[in-house]
Protein backbone atom coordinates (compact mmCIF):
# COMPACT_ATOMS: atom_id res chain seq x y z
CA UNK A 1 0.00 0.00 0.00
CA UNK A 2 2.80 2.39 0.90
CA UNK A 3 4.58 1.61 -2.34
CA UNK A 4 1.43 2.41 -4.29
CA UNK A 5 0.99 5.77 -2.59
CA UNK A 6 4.55 6.80 -3.34
CA UNK A 7 3.92 5.97 -6.97
CA UNK A 8 0.79 8.08 -6.94
CA UNK A 9 2.57 11.14 -5.59
CA UNK A 10 4.57 11.66 -8.79
CA UNK A 11 1.45 12.28 -10.81
CA UNK A 12 0.14 15.01 -8.58
CA UNK A 13 2.45 17.70 -9.85
CA UNK A 14 5.02 16.01 -12.06
CA UNK A 15 4.14 14.38 -15.38
CA UNK A 16 4.44 10.63 -15.40
CA UNK A 17 7.54 9.10 -16.97
CA UNK A 18 7.65 5.54 -18.26
CA UNK A 19 10.09 3.75 -20.53
CA UNK A 20 9.00 3.61 -24.18
CA UNK A 21 9.21 -0.19 -23.94
CA UNK A 22 6.08 -0.19 -21.75
CA UNK A 23 4.05 1.40 -24.55
CA UNK A 24 5.49 -0.96 -27.14
CA UNK A 25 4.56 -3.95 -24.98
CA UNK A 26 1.00 -2.69 -24.47
CA UNK A 27 0.73 -1.95 -28.18
CA UNK A 28 1.81 -5.50 -29.03
CA UNK A 29 -0.66 -6.88 -26.48
CA UNK A 30 -3.47 -4.81 -28.02
CA UNK A 31 -2.53 -6.17 -31.44
CA UNK A 32 -2.67 -9.75 -30.20
CA UNK A 33 -5.99 -9.15 -28.43
CA UNK A 34 -7.48 -7.54 -31.56
CA UNK A 35 -6.28 -10.48 -33.64
CA UNK A 36 -7.91 -12.83 -31.12
CA UNK A 37 -11.25 -11.01 -31.29
CA UNK A 38 -11.08 -11.09 -35.08
CA UNK A 39 -10.42 -14.84 -34.91
CA UNK A 40 -13.67 -15.23 -32.95
CA UNK A 41 -15.46 -14.15 -36.12
CA UNK A 42 -13.10 -15.83 -38.57
CA UNK A 43 -13.60 -19.26 -37.00
CA UNK A 44 -17.33 -18.54 -36.58
CA UNK A 45 -17.65 -19.39 -32.90
CA UNK A 46 -21.32 -19.18 -31.98
CA UNK A 47 -23.54 -18.79 -28.96
CA UNK A 48 -22.34 -18.31 -25.42
CA UNK A 49 -18.69 -18.99 -26.28
CA UNK A 50 -18.71 -16.24 -28.89
CA UNK A 51 -20.26 -13.63 -26.56
CA UNK A 52 -17.95 -14.50 -23.67
CA UNK A 53 -14.84 -14.26 -25.86
CA UNK A 54 -15.96 -10.97 -27.47
CA UNK A 55 -16.63 -9.39 -24.07
CA UNK A 56 -13.42 -10.74 -22.52
CA UNK A 57 -11.21 -9.39 -25.31
CA UNK A 58 -13.15 -6.12 -25.36
CA UNK A 59 -12.72 -5.49 -21.63
CA UNK A 60 -9.03 -6.43 -21.72
CA UNK A 61 -8.40 -4.01 -24.59
CA UNK A 62 -10.44 -1.23 -22.98
CA UNK A 63 -8.67 -1.77 -19.67
CA UNK A 64 -5.21 -1.56 -21.25
CA UNK A 65 -6.07 1.61 -23.16
CA UNK A 66 -7.63 3.33 -20.14
CA UNK A 67 -5.07 2.23 -17.56
CA UNK A 68 -1.78 2.46 -19.49
CA UNK A 69 -2.30 4.70 -22.54
CA UNK A 70 -4.55 7.17 -20.72
CA UNK A 71 -2.45 6.88 -17.54
CA UNK A 72 -5.44 6.30 -15.28
CA UNK A 73 -3.49 3.63 -13.37
CA UNK A 74 -1.22 6.38 -12.02
CA UNK A 75 -3.95 8.92 -11.28
CA UNK A 76 -5.17 9.61 -7.79
CA UNK A 77 -8.14 7.74 -6.36
CA UNK A 78 -10.33 10.88 -6.55
CA UNK A 79 -9.82 10.98 -10.35
CA UNK A 80 -10.58 7.28 -10.72
CA UNK A 81 -13.84 7.76 -8.85
CA UNK A 82 -14.71 10.76 -11.02
CA UNK A 83 -14.31 8.56 -14.10
CA UNK A 84 -15.73 5.24 -12.97
CA UNK A 85 -18.67 6.13 -10.70
CA UNK A 86 -20.91 8.01 -13.24
CA UNK A 87 -20.87 5.17 -15.83
CA UNK A 88 -22.71 2.97 -13.30
CA UNK A 89 -25.78 4.95 -14.39
CA UNK A 90 -25.14 3.66 -17.92
CA UNK A 91 -25.14 0.06 -16.73
CA UNK A 92 -28.51 0.60 -15.04
CA UNK A 93 -29.82 2.22 -18.22
CA UNK A 94 -28.64 -0.75 -20.32
CA UNK A 95 -30.45 -3.13 -17.97
CA UNK A 96 -33.66 -1.06 -18.17
CA UNK A 97 -33.50 -0.84 -21.97
CA UNK A 98 -32.97 -4.57 -22.40
CA UNK A 99 -36.05 -5.24 -20.29
CA UNK A 100 -37.95 -2.72 -22.41
CA UNK A 101 -36.69 -4.32 -25.63
CA UNK A 102 -37.95 -7.72 -24.49
CA UNK A 103 -41.34 -6.19 -23.77
CA UNK A 104 -41.49 -4.52 -27.22
CA UNK A 105 -40.44 -7.78 -28.89
CA UNK A 106 -43.18 -9.77 -27.14
CA UNK A 107 -45.73 -7.06 -27.92
CA UNK A 108 -44.74 -7.10 -31.59
CA UNK A 109 -44.93 -10.89 -31.80
CA UNK A 110 -48.38 -10.84 -30.23
CA UNK A 111 -49.80 -8.09 -32.45
CA UNK A 112 -48.02 -8.80 -35.76
CA UNK A 113 -48.31 -12.58 -35.93
CA UNK A 114 -51.43 -13.28 -33.90
CA UNK A 115 -54.36 -11.42 -35.47
Amino acid at each position, binding site marked *: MIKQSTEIQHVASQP*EQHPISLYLKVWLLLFVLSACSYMVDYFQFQGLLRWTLILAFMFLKAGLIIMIFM*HVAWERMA*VKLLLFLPPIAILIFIAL*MSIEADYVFITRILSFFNP
Partner: protein
Amino acid sequence: MSNDEHQKNSQDNNTSPWQSVVNDWSADKQSFDMPWGKLMMWVFLLSDTFIFSIFLTSYMNVRMSATTAWPNPSEVFALTIAGHHIPLVLIAIMTFILITSSGTMAMAVNYAYQGNKKKTVYLMLATALLGASFIGMQAFEWTKLIVEEGIRPWGNPMGANQFGAAFFMITGFHGLHVSAGVIYLSIIAKRVNQGKYDKKGYHIVEITGLYWHFVDLVWVFIFAFFYLW
Protein backbone atom coordinates in the same frame (compact mmCIF):
# COMPACT_ATOMS: atom_id res chain seq x y z
CA MET B 1 8.18 20.71 -5.42
CA SER B 2 6.68 23.39 -3.22
CA ASN B 3 6.52 22.98 0.52
CA ASP B 4 2.76 22.70 0.44
CA GLU B 5 2.83 19.84 -2.06
CA HIS B 6 5.58 18.13 -0.17
CA GLN B 7 3.50 18.15 2.96
CA LYS B 8 0.52 16.68 1.17
CA ASN B 9 2.57 13.95 -0.48
CA SER B 10 4.32 12.87 2.67
CA GLN B 11 0.91 12.77 4.27
CA ASP B 12 -0.27 10.47 1.48
CA ASN B 13 2.53 8.03 2.07
CA ASN B 14 0.81 6.59 5.08
CA THR B 15 -2.84 6.96 4.02
CA SER B 16 -5.06 4.60 2.07
CA PRO B 17 -6.38 5.53 -1.41
CA TRP B 18 -9.78 6.15 0.20
CA GLN B 19 -8.27 8.48 2.78
CA SER B 20 -6.56 10.33 -0.09
CA VAL B 21 -9.98 10.97 -1.63
CA VAL B 22 -11.18 12.52 1.64
CA ASN B 23 -7.98 14.58 1.83
CA ASP B 24 -8.32 15.78 -1.77
CA TRP B 25 -11.92 16.84 -1.35
CA SER B 26 -11.65 18.38 2.10
CA ALA B 27 -8.45 20.36 1.55
CA ASP B 28 -9.11 24.06 1.10
CA LYS B 29 -7.95 24.04 -2.54
CA GLN B 30 -8.70 22.45 -5.93
CA SER B 31 -9.79 18.82 -5.58
CA PHE B 32 -8.08 17.49 -8.70
CA ASP B 33 -4.39 18.26 -8.77
CA MET B 34 -3.92 18.46 -12.53
CA PRO B 35 -3.84 21.20 -15.20
CA TRP B 36 -7.36 22.55 -15.73
CA GLY B 37 -7.25 21.67 -19.45
CA LYS B 38 -6.66 18.04 -18.61
CA LEU B 39 -9.51 17.96 -16.10
CA MET B 40 -11.83 19.61 -18.62
CA MET B 41 -10.83 17.04 -21.24
CA TRP B 42 -11.68 14.26 -18.78
CA VAL B 43 -15.07 15.85 -18.08
CA PHE B 44 -15.72 16.14 -21.82
CA LEU B 45 -14.69 12.51 -22.39
CA LEU B 46 -17.00 11.41 -19.59
CA SER B 47 -19.91 13.21 -21.26
CA ASP B 48 -18.90 11.68 -24.60
CA THR B 49 -18.93 8.27 -22.95
CA PHE B 50 -22.58 8.86 -22.18
CA ILE B 51 -23.38 9.87 -25.76
CA PHE B 52 -21.76 6.78 -27.28
CA SER B 53 -23.30 4.58 -24.60
CA ILE B 54 -26.73 5.90 -25.50
CA PHE B 55 -26.12 5.15 -29.20
CA LEU B 56 -24.95 1.63 -28.42
CA THR B 57 -27.83 1.09 -25.99
CA SER B 58 -30.40 2.22 -28.55
CA TYR B 59 -28.75 -0.15 -31.04
CA MET B 60 -29.08 -2.98 -28.51
CA ASN B 61 -32.71 -2.01 -27.96
CA VAL B 62 -33.70 -2.07 -31.66
CA ARG B 63 -31.72 -5.24 -32.34
CA MET B 64 -33.35 -7.10 -29.44
CA SER B 65 -36.84 -5.95 -30.37
CA ALA B 66 -36.61 -6.54 -34.15
CA THR B 67 -38.90 -9.31 -35.34
CA THR B 68 -37.00 -9.85 -38.61
CA ALA B 69 -33.51 -11.36 -38.60
CA TRP B 70 -30.60 -8.95 -38.05
CA PRO B 71 -28.23 -8.86 -41.06
CA ASN B 72 -25.09 -10.91 -40.34
CA PRO B 73 -22.29 -8.30 -40.00
CA SER B 74 -19.70 -10.95 -40.78
CA GLU B 75 -21.25 -11.29 -44.25
CA VAL B 76 -22.23 -7.65 -44.77
CA PHE B 77 -18.70 -6.44 -44.18
CA ALA B 78 -16.90 -9.25 -46.02
CA LEU B 79 -14.60 -8.41 -48.91
CA THR B 80 -13.36 -10.52 -51.78
CA ILE B 81 -9.63 -9.93 -52.16
CA ALA B 82 -7.74 -11.74 -54.95
CA GLY B 83 -10.51 -14.27 -55.25
CA HIS B 84 -10.64 -15.01 -51.52
CA HIS B 85 -13.81 -14.25 -49.59
CA ILE B 86 -12.63 -12.87 -46.24
CA PRO B 87 -15.19 -11.90 -43.59
CA LEU B 88 -14.88 -8.54 -41.84
CA VAL B 89 -11.38 -7.96 -43.25
CA LEU B 90 -11.62 -4.20 -43.79
CA ILE B 91 -12.91 -3.69 -40.26
CA ALA B 92 -10.02 -5.74 -38.88
CA ILE B 93 -7.50 -3.60 -40.80
CA MET B 94 -9.23 -0.44 -39.52
CA THR B 95 -8.98 -1.78 -35.96
CA PHE B 96 -5.26 -2.45 -36.33
CA ILE B 97 -4.69 1.01 -37.81
CA LEU B 98 -6.49 2.72 -34.94
CA ILE B 99 -4.57 0.72 -32.33
CA THR B 100 -1.30 1.57 -34.06
CA SER B 101 -2.24 5.25 -34.01
CA SER B 102 -2.94 4.96 -30.29
CA GLY B 103 0.52 3.47 -29.81
CA THR B 104 2.24 6.29 -31.70
CA MET B 105 0.20 8.83 -29.70
CA ALA B 106 1.24 7.29 -26.38
CA MET B 107 4.87 7.54 -27.47
CA ALA B 108 4.35 11.15 -28.59
CA VAL B 109 3.14 12.03 -25.08
CA ASN B 110 6.18 10.31 -23.59
CA TYR B 111 8.63 12.16 -25.84
CA ALA B 112 6.84 15.45 -25.19
CA TYR B 113 7.46 15.13 -21.45
CA GLN B 114 11.09 14.20 -22.18
CA GLY B 115 11.34 17.48 -24.09
CA ASN B 116 12.07 15.79 -27.42
CA LYS B 117 10.11 18.15 -29.65
CA LYS B 118 11.11 16.69 -33.01
CA LYS B 119 10.04 13.13 -32.17
CA THR B 120 6.83 14.43 -30.59
CA VAL B 121 5.85 16.31 -33.74
CA TYR B 122 6.68 13.38 -36.03
CA LEU B 123 4.78 10.89 -33.88
CA MET B 124 1.75 13.20 -33.66
CA LEU B 125 1.76 13.63 -37.42
CA ALA B 126 2.05 9.85 -37.85
CA THR B 127 -0.98 9.50 -35.56
CA ALA B 128 -2.94 12.04 -37.61
CA LEU B 129 -1.96 10.28 -40.83
CA LEU B 130 -3.11 6.90 -39.50
CA GLY B 131 -6.35 8.54 -38.40
CA ALA B 132 -6.84 10.02 -41.86
CA SER B 133 -6.31 6.60 -43.47
CA PHE B 134 -8.92 5.20 -41.06
CA ILE B 135 -11.41 7.81 -42.29
CA GLY B 136 -10.51 6.94 -45.89
CA MET B 137 -11.31 3.27 -45.30
CA GLN B 138 -14.54 4.18 -43.58
CA ALA B 139 -15.53 6.31 -46.57
CA PHE B 140 -14.80 3.29 -48.80
CA GLU B 141 -16.89 1.05 -46.53
CA TRP B 142 -19.83 3.49 -46.51
CA THR B 143 -19.69 3.86 -50.30
CA LYS B 144 -19.70 0.10 -50.77
CA LEU B 145 -22.61 -0.36 -48.38
CA ILE B 146 -24.70 2.45 -49.85
CA VAL B 147 -23.99 1.94 -53.56
CA GLU B 148 -23.44 -1.81 -53.90
CA GLU B 149 -25.41 -3.32 -51.04
CA GLY B 150 -28.25 -0.79 -51.05
CA ILE B 151 -28.24 -0.20 -47.30
CA ARG B 152 -30.25 2.84 -46.23
CA PRO B 153 -31.08 4.22 -42.76
CA TRP B 154 -34.70 3.13 -43.30
CA GLY B 155 -34.13 -0.30 -44.80
CA ASN B 156 -31.88 -2.79 -46.53
CA PRO B 157 -32.18 -5.97 -48.60
CA MET B 158 -30.57 -8.24 -45.97
CA GLY B 159 -32.91 -8.09 -42.98
CA ALA B 160 -34.05 -5.86 -40.13
CA ASN B 161 -34.70 -2.29 -41.28
CA GLN B 162 -33.08 -0.83 -38.16
CA PHE B 163 -29.63 -2.07 -39.24
CA GLY B 164 -28.88 0.93 -41.44
CA ALA B 165 -29.99 3.54 -38.92
CA ALA B 166 -27.86 2.03 -36.16
CA PHE B 167 -24.87 1.55 -38.47
CA PHE B 168 -24.79 5.03 -39.98
CA MET B 169 -25.50 6.71 -36.66
CA ILE B 170 -22.83 4.90 -34.64
CA THR B 171 -20.00 4.68 -37.17
CA GLY B 172 -20.85 8.13 -38.50
CA PHE B 173 -20.55 9.72 -35.09
CA HIS B 174 -17.34 7.84 -34.42
CA GLY B 175 -15.94 8.86 -37.81
CA LEU B 176 -16.79 12.46 -36.96
CA HIS B 177 -14.74 12.09 -33.77
CA VAL B 178 -11.81 10.65 -35.73
CA SER B 179 -12.00 13.52 -38.24
CA ALA B 180 -12.07 16.10 -35.44
CA GLY B 181 -9.15 14.28 -33.82
CA VAL B 182 -7.07 14.43 -37.01
CA ILE B 183 -7.63 18.20 -37.22
CA TYR B 184 -6.95 18.64 -33.49
CA LEU B 185 -3.73 16.59 -33.71
CA SER B 186 -2.50 18.51 -36.76
CA ILE B 187 -3.08 21.87 -35.09
CA ILE B 188 -1.36 20.88 -31.85
CA ALA B 189 1.55 19.25 -33.71
CA LYS B 190 2.01 22.47 -35.68
CA ARG B 191 1.94 24.58 -32.54
CA VAL B 192 4.39 22.26 -30.74
CA ASN B 193 6.69 22.58 -33.75
CA GLN B 194 6.41 26.37 -33.58
CA GLY B 195 7.54 26.22 -29.96
CA LYS B 196 4.33 27.68 -28.53
CA TYR B 197 4.46 25.33 -25.53
CA ASP B 198 8.14 25.67 -24.71
CA LYS B 199 7.38 27.88 -21.71
CA LYS B 200 3.94 26.52 -20.80
CA GLY B 201 4.97 22.86 -20.70
CA TYR B 202 3.76 19.96 -22.80
CA HIS B 203 0.58 19.01 -20.95
CA ILE B 204 -1.33 19.84 -24.12
CA VAL B 205 0.16 16.78 -25.85
CA GLU B 206 -1.15 14.55 -23.09
CA ILE B 207 -4.56 16.22 -23.30
CA THR B 208 -4.69 15.65 -27.06
CA GLY B 209 -3.55 12.10 -26.38
CA LEU B 210 -6.44 11.54 -23.99
CA TYR B 211 -8.91 12.51 -26.71
CA TRP B 212 -7.24 10.28 -29.28
CA HIS B 213 -7.08 7.25 -26.97
CA PHE B 214 -10.76 7.77 -26.20
CA VAL B 215 -11.60 7.60 -29.92
CA ASP B 216 -9.71 4.31 -30.05
CA LEU B 217 -11.50 3.14 -26.90
CA VAL B 218 -14.91 3.82 -28.42
CA TRP B 219 -13.90 1.81 -31.50
CA VAL B 220 -13.08 -1.18 -29.26
CA PHE B 221 -16.70 -1.17 -28.07
CA ILE B 222 -18.17 -0.55 -31.55
CA PHE B 223 -16.03 -3.37 -32.98
CA ALA B 224 -17.20 -5.78 -30.29
CA PHE B 225 -20.89 -4.88 -30.19
CA PHE B 226 -21.67 -3.89 -33.75
CA TYR B 227 -19.31 -5.88 -35.96
CA LEU B 228 -18.64 -9.03 -33.94
CA TRP B 229 -21.84 -9.61 -31.94
